[in-house]
């Protein structure tokens, strides 16, 4: 078990969920603070700023979305969202409002820990970025703008390169359509999602062995894309 000493704030109204999350997190060396309402959560975050927040979207009283918005006014550390499957719209809203990732209930502990690790890693690597990123067989050299898979160089158009670099820098993290469109194409055209879909498909053709069963560039249907973390 890694002893990492990160403080996690858990904002969740359901006792059973809180209990197993607490047990899991403590076992894995995290320190845990708990709040049952949005108001209490905001207060606790201000009193003792945590390294990561796990926020349930379906809170009584102050809604999860509002908690997120208020939190993001000053809080820079990662926020993970817990939501139900049929809440795609809320997920997207939360991600666009500054949440780092989401987990759909019911989720396995492995999934949760992986998301937390990814989020914390990104939070800590800000500013100091490696010149070379490698995930599986895909390698991108940000300094010389070279991409390869299994040692074979891959030729990408400038736009495809931009997209891949964005994905790999945020490996393991879900990126919404809106975010990707804004980052790659600029602030306009954030509704033309099908351009993005076509570009992602082209990129898949170049980096995936079987583009219909991708290993790296995964689709989060209705939300966006996620580049596999490892």
């Amino acid at each position: 078990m890694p002893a990492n000493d990160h403080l996690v704030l858990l904002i969740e109204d359901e006792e059973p969920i809180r209990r197993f999350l607490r047990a899991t997190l403590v076992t894995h060396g995290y320190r845990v603070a708990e709040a049952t309402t949005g108001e209490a959560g905001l207060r606790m975050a201000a009193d003792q700023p945590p390294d990561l927040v796990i926020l349930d979207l379906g809170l009584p009283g102050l809604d999860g979305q509002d908690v997120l918005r208020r939190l993001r006014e000053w809080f820079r550390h990662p926020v993970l969202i817990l939501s139900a499957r049929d809440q795609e719209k809320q997920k997207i809203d939360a991600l666009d409002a500054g949440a780092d990732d989401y987990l759909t209930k019911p989720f396995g502990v492995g999934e949760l820990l992986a998301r937390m690790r990814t989020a914390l890693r990104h939070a800590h690597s800000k500013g100091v970025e490696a010149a070379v990123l490698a995930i599986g067989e895909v390698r991108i050299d940000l300094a010389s703008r070279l991409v390869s898979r299994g040692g074979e160089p891959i030729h990408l158009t400038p736009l495809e390169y931009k997209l891949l670099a964005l994905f790999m820098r945020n490996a393991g993290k879900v990126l919404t359509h809106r975010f990707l469109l804004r980052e790659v194409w600029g602030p306009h055209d954030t509704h033309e999602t099908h351009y993005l879909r076509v570009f992602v498909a082209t990129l898949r053709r170049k980096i995936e062995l079987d583009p219909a069963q991708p290993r790296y560039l995964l689709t989060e249907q209705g939300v966006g894309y996620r580049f596999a973390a490892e």
Partner: protein
Amino acid sequence: MAAALDAPWVAVCVEKTGIASDPAAKQRVVDHLRLAERLGAETVTLTGTDVSETILDFARTLNVTKIFVGKTHSPRWRRVLWKSVVEDLLDNSGEIDVYVIQGQEEHRQTEVMPRPARRVQWRDSVAAGGVVAAASLLATWLHGLHVAEANIVMIFLAAVAFVAFQFGRGPAIQASLASVLIFDVFFVPPQFSLTVNDTQYLFTFAVMLAIGMLISTLTARLQSQLDSGRQRERRTLALYRLGKQLGGLAGDIFLVGAAGQHVREMVGGEVAIYLEGDDGLPVAMFGEEASIAKHPRSGPTAHWVMTHDRIAGRGTDTLPSAVALFIPLSGSQGPLGAMAVGVEGTDWLLHPEHRQWLESCASQLAIAPERDRMTVAAGDARVKAEAEQVRSTLLSSVSHDLKTPLAAIAGASSSLLQCTPAIEGTSRELLETISEEAHRLNRLLENILQISRLDSGAVTPNTQWHLLEDIVGSALHRTKDNREHHPVTVRIDPAMPLIFVDGLLLEQALVNLLENAARHTPAGTPIEIVGKVDGREVTISVADAGPGLVPGTEEKVFDRYYRGTAGADAGRGSGLGLAICRAIMHLHGGTITAFARAGGGAEFVIRLPLAENTPPFLMDHFAQPA
């Protein structure tokens, strides 16, 4: 013209106060206004002393920009002496444009309506004679007192004025003639003869006669205005009462009954009211027992009136042989029925004001059932919306209440599995069972929620342009834990265009098909996904090489809660997966069918109509080196 300008227009008729227009002209005006209404105008009848002033006042209040006025030919001398309405309008219109249209000289044969014969007025004449006699007696007495002749004339004048005021024109003329005679014979020298010494008495006679006529004319006019005012008031009151009564009622039978009784009381004849039945034919809802409704020709007349939305029957040019006057009940959505009014003789029915009044009653009555139906429809819609609200609240609370403990069970068991590697053997197996079953229960719950949402029509597909490859890929990713032992091959036509679907729903359908295939086939059985363009359709087939479908169940498998009998694991599904697939395809205007594969195994084929205006991105595009 109004249509060309796309402007609303108003047809105006001005009734001059104090001038009783003749019934034929009135009927013509009514006809014109009705025509204007049919052409889309709003019609208004105004009253005023000065026609042009009244029109301009009205035009200014409505911010009218153009006035069209018809000009009829009139002789030159008349035009010199009196300004026509048109000239008046032109002089005073100010900012409003006035267009003059040459009216056609009308030679229309208007049916001359028989004036109601006047009652014999001998009684009035006798009374007038009495008044004159009394005046004569008074005059004789005053004459004895040597009162001046001028004042004696006044006595007679007063008598004439009184007669004119009380008994009308005819007796007034008789009275003035009698007065002149009596005055001449008894008071003007030479007495007891018709000869007159002084010619100035002739002047006196003339004035007496003129005043008598003038007063009687004025009185008659006043009287007729008073009468028509009273009548109008009575009818307005009756209409108001009818409106009020109808406003407080609900249900066609009651509405029609109230209106029918009301009109019958006012008219004093027979009334029958027809409403459109389910078969489109009029059904007598009021006065079924009356002779109108029993007459064999009434039904067809009512039907004609209803379908043509025009007045017909007795007293009109259309179907005049009918026993009653039929007035259409036209609501805003079309004809609702007809009202038949039958009275003794046709005079009453021919009177334009009466007809207008009946038409007003008919329109009041037509509004009522419509309002009633709308109220009922609005109520139904509200109940439906409330039921929907309850349903969705119930669904989301059930979903939350069941999912939370499930999430806790799944999470806790996975936590134990992950964090305590020391647990081994049977205990680990049991823990794994808990975890897996919690997930399975969750999928089952999601399926039930999904099918209820699809059933209730609460799902509106969020359709966007998608790549089939992308959706297949995410469906495979979502099912990767459930089909570890089933290799999947995917073949998608390189010419596959973008498809216009709800990505999440299509993914759900593919997930269900993949899980279905994995569940019903032994481990190691390959699954094949093929996407093709077939004319104006896209077909997506998910096929396995398993035991296949039981012959004859190709349709049944899409039934709710149907579970295949083949395969040991068959009972483990929710029995809803394929029903959900079908509902999703239905939502997209597509179909899903099941086949037994030639080489064994089951094949499910989704057919989606290819959308128009597909963005020009083909899979071909990717095949070329960039």
